């Protein structure tokens, strides 16, 4: 089984079975354990801050509605990422390729080093903009690797590409983003 790192896939499978048998708490547990990862991916890949929760909700809703098509050869989390990236693709298409990035969602600066914190926040904003300038596959490979810790095999399964191609996309992305932040 190809699985991105995350909560135990075996317990995911058990929760899915429980949900299929009618247990709503099992579905809620699945959402709670994977929602932060889906949110990280959506936001970092370009979703507007105000849309992240709605898009995450839509991704889970679609996942549960199509649960009969999930065969278990990928982890539930990997499958969710596939749904989330398609959702985001549709969202970008609706906006005709325009990415809406806002800075209203910045963290509150730490009091002990406000200057350093502001600088770090600016770097994060810059990175988010830089990610939007990358080709989609480079962006998604980079995020799944550095934020989720996925291996190339796992990432390739989510993005429907090969591990070799995922590796090449990752190194291209790193090179371009390093130049951007330096």
């Amino acid at each position, binding site marked *: 089984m190809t699985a991105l790192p995350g909560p135990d896939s075996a317990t995911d499978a058990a929760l899915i079975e429980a949900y299929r048998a009618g247990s709503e708490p099992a579905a809620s547990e699945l959402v709670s354990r994977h929602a932060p990862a889906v949110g990280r991916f959506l936001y970092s890949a370009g979703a507007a801050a105000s849309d992240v929760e709605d898009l995450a909700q839509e991704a889970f809703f679609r996942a549960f509605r199509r649960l009969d098509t999930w065969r278990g050869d990928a982890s539930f989390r990997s499958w969710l990422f596939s749904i989330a990236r398609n959702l985001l693709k549709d969202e970008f298409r609706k906006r005709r390729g325009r990415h809406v990035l806002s800075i209203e969602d910045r963290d509150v600066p730490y009091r002990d080093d406000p200057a350093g914190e502001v600088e770090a926040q600016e770097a994060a904003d810059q990175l988010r903009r830089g990610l939007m300038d990358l080709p989609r596959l480079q962006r998604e490979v980079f995020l799944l690797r550095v934020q989720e810790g996925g291996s190339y095999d796992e990432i390739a399964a989510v993005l429907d590409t090969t591990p070799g191609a995922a590796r090449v996309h990752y190194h291209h992305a790193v090179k371009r983003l*390093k130049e951007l932040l330096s």
Partner: protein
Amino acid sequence: MTEPPCTRLSERIPEVATGRADWSAGEAEHLSACAACRAEWLLTQTAQRLARRAEALIDPDRVADGVMRRLAESPARGIGRRLRWAGVTVAAAAAILLVVRVTSTPRSPETVPVVASVPPDGLFLPGLDSLTVEELESVLVSIDQPIAAVSTIDAYEWQSLDDHELERLLREWEG
């Protein structure tokens, strides 16, 4: 062949950044001495910061509540699809029965036509010749009906059933 230290470190950065591994002493030493690797590490740290920012935007419990509410409001997709197939199956079975009934009706020898050619002004159906006017009317009416109307249960009845009733109905149909 041994990979260059920068390549090896680059492959290890995501693992360490996501907290699934620690630097070895040798890796830490290389990192402190190599500007390119430090820049890559900084990039990863910045991506982690974005991740934390995203986590603050989402409340998993609220998402779960929203998903469960929407699932409760929408009929199960699996049931809908099975009902559609059941409807098609019932309609197909009714059509087959109709054809079998029409073609297997016993005919007296004098009514069996000899087919010489298809009349130029229409389709020649010898199986219908033995039917009375009333029977012909009945066949025409059933042919003119939309497929859904041939089903033994109408769409309004399906819509008024809840999920459990629909499941029970499907089980009965499927034996």
